[in-house]
């Protein structure tokens, strides 16, 4: 089988995650810039070599404001805002741009400081953004008081009802992520927890407990994508794109299946394009905003049947050493979640595929193929899904 037409047309040559989870002495754009320079540097590149720039969310007109801060003049730009999966989308766009000859070196960067700024992500208000522009659909949601976490809870509740998924199975996701975080010296929370700890943590939006929810941390990261000619001379081992898919999921005009996510569309597209089977995948990076995301995404990507995700995450199957390790860095549930985690999925996938953690328990042995799925937005109302299959070969 032949992979995507983008295979070997571009490569990830740099990946960097800021080591701290609290940066009170920095600005978000500063963190973003530092990460980008570090990611370029490990490939032996600098800002002067970069002609493409992707960023979002930092206040300003992105990515132009970021280009201004850096002092660069990109000839290729991307800033589509589809939530936390945006950076995974930029990876696809960067590969497309390089394949089309529109760029040679594309930087994708992110920095956000919700801890320092005291910003609530999951339980703050969602409406009445700057400028007072209210999306049409919000009139049918905001009056009822559903916070971000609640949109995920609607899916979890229906999944439990329809398929008998148990709170203990949801809890298993957080327990596994915490175990992985214990192997990551930079993870925000590293002390082991058990299923009882999750179930005994307070309910935020039923059925999701506090420890079913991602943490809030400062954070930043960057990846650099380059033309194969540049990748060949880079100091790092290149990581290639085998396949990709994207999807939008919404209310389906009042006929939504709450047990299915956007991954059910983006996953099959990406797998088909990649030419690899699920058995070929050595580990997965899944945007674990909440425990239910991992369970539903595993089903929707096709690692198990719909409804069997709860059983799949049991018995250490998604832990390091298991059948399909998920988020060896500790994920958004324990390591790093500054609001848009998609960036860190790419960084960890790249570093695992390069074997950066060789000789430690965090390394997925012989990791050659990674399935990466980013989620953006509000699970039970509207969200994006972007899947990429990456390889070191």
């Amino acid at each position, binding site marked *: 089988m032949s992979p995507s037409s983008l295979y070997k047309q571009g490569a990830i040559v740099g990946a960097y995650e800021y080591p701290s989870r609290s940066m009170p002495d920095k600005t978000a754009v500063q963190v973003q810039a530092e990460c980008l320079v570090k990611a370029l540097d490990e490939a032996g590149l600098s800002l002067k070599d970069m002609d493409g720039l992707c960023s979002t969310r930092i206040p300003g007109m992105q990515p132009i404001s970021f280009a201004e801060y850096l002092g660069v003049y990109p000839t290729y730009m991307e800033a589509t805002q589809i939530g936390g999966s945006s950076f995974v989308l930029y990876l696809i766009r960067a590969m497309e741009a390089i394949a089309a000859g529109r760029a040679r070196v594309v930087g994708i960067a992110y920095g956000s400081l919700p801890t320092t700024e005291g910003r609530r992500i999951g339980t703050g208000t969602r409406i009445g953004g700057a400028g007072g522009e209210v999306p049409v659909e919000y009139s049918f949601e905001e009056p009822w008081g559903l916070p971000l976490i609640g949109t995920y809870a609607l899916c979890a509740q229906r999944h439990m009802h329809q398929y008998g998924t148990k709170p203990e199975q949801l809890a298993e996701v957080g327990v596994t992520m915490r175990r992985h975080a214990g192997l990551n010296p930079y993870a925000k929370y590293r002390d082991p927890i058990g299923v009882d700890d999750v179930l005994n943590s307070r309910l935020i939006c039923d059925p999701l407990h506090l420890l079913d929810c991602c943490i809030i941390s400062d954070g930043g990261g960057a990846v650099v994508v380059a033309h194969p000619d540049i990748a060949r001379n880079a100091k790092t081992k290149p990581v290639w794109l085998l396949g990709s898919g994207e999807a939008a999921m919404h209310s389906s*005009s009042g006929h939504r299946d709450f047990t299915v996510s956007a991954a059910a569309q983006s996953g099959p597209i990406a797998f088909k394009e990649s030419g690899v089977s699920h058995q070929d995948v050595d580990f997965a990076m899944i945007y674990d905003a909440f425990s239910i995301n991992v369970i539903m995404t595993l089903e929707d990507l096709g690692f198990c049947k719909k409804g069997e995700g709860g059983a799949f995450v049991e018995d250490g199957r998604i832990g390091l050493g298991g059948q399909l390790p998920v988020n060896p860095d500790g994920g958004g549930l324990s390591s790093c979640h500054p609001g848009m985690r998609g960036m860190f999925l790419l960084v960890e996938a790249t570093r695992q595929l390069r074997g950066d953690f060789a000789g430690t328990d965090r390394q997925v042995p012989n990791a050659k193929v990674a399935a990466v799925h980013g989620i953006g937005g509000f699970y039970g109302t509207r969200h994006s899904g972007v899947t990429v299959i990456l390889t070191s070969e």
Partner: protein
Amino acid sequence: MTEDKKPYVKPLPVPNMESEPFWSALKEHRLQVQQCKSCSKHYFYPRSHCPFCYSGDVEWVGCSGKGKVHTFSVIRQNMAPGFREEAPYVVAMVELDEGGVQMMTNIVECEPGDVSIGMPVQVTFEDVTDEVTLPKFKPA
């Protein structure tokens, strides 16, 4: 607004040309949704064309106000004004008897712990301001 009435601080809907009939019917304590005359599907939220077959031949149909809980969550934490004081409360997707079309709402007049998926519910109209009436649901 009378003096003894507390100001309503929760977000209010912003009716537009496409959704105005929905909100004005609620003021008269009537619940109505749209149905496509071409493919006969009910859909929500309101808009000028059918999102299933893209026909513009759509009509407003009165609802019985009966339905059941499709999914829900007990919201125990929401820092937004108006909701902070009220937690825990229930946000649900109710599927109406009319074509099973879903809408978001609050389940009221019962303990949050008594709500379950499949529970039959009935609309109740809450005049939250002089201009706006919201459709909430209570156990049927």
